[in-house]
């Protein structure tokens, strides 16, 4: 019977998979990107959406301004407070 606590097992798995990704060569990453039709070197490429170009909902910004200075200060550290783990199209 498997008695591993889900959160512990899951984090253990993530750590192992993270190790695999750290071991991948740049060539392998670029080859996968190429396979997907992603061109990281191209201006406006979707490859780095959420990384070098992030997006913020204007409504969200208005709301956070209303919440006062302390809140907007904390927002200012990271300017990509966006939706779910899934991407929105650029």
């Amino acid at each position, binding site marked *: 019977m*498997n008695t*591993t*606590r*889900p*959160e*512990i*097992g*899951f*984090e*253990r*798995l*993530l*750590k*192992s*998979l*993270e190790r*695999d*990704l*750290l*071991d*991948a060569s*740049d060539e*392998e*990453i*670029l080859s*996968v*990107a190429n*396979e*997907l039709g992603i061109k*990281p*070197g191209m201006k406006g490429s*979707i*490859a*780095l*959406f*959420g*990384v*070098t*170009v*992030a*997006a*913020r*909902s*204007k*409504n969200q910004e208005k709301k956070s301004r209303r919440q006062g200075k302390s809140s907007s200060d*904390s*927002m200012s*550290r*990271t*300017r*990509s*407070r*966006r*939706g*779910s*783990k*899934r*991407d*929105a*199209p650029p």
Partner: protein
Amino acid sequence: MKRHIDLMTWPESVEWIRSPPARRALDAKIVTGADLLRLKVLARLQARGLPPHISWSDLLQEAFARVLDGSRRQPEGVPVVAFVAGVMRSIKEQYWRQARRGARQRPKLLAELEITGVEEGEPFDPRPSPERRAIAIQEMEAINKLFEDDLQAGQIISALYEGLTVDETCARYAMSKTDYDSTRTRMRRALLKAGLRTPQP
């Protein structure tokens, strides 16, 4: 509260942020474009262990914000990608620790988390958390689905989850070391594909 871009009014409802911390790190030549691609995949993987209102981009940008403001310092000999990945892991653990402490308060933003464990990172919080457990179960299903057509990958996923060594995994599933290695390579490629694809499967 789930923040999202309203696609009905997109792009008018969206403000593009041209210099988030990761961009500034690229401009300062702290990382390369290839590093950022790898970190994007790593952030997507790590964010699977966080609630849905925190996106992978939040996690990545927060890690870079801490690197740029000097609250996290890269130890000598540690490659930058491994270092930033460690910062993301550490932020995630801080989030869960403080979520436990502030369970009755409003949810915190990543940028509001206290900065602790500056050099050594944040160890895994061993105390049970129902929310974290629910997310882990849900995301395990998503990862299993990613490898549903690959029996050996599924076996290795189970083994890693249980913390088995390579030898124990090979013995349990009657797998040769060569099969094990080639399956890990396939898994890595599948993860890269999933991590680079938009939207993420």
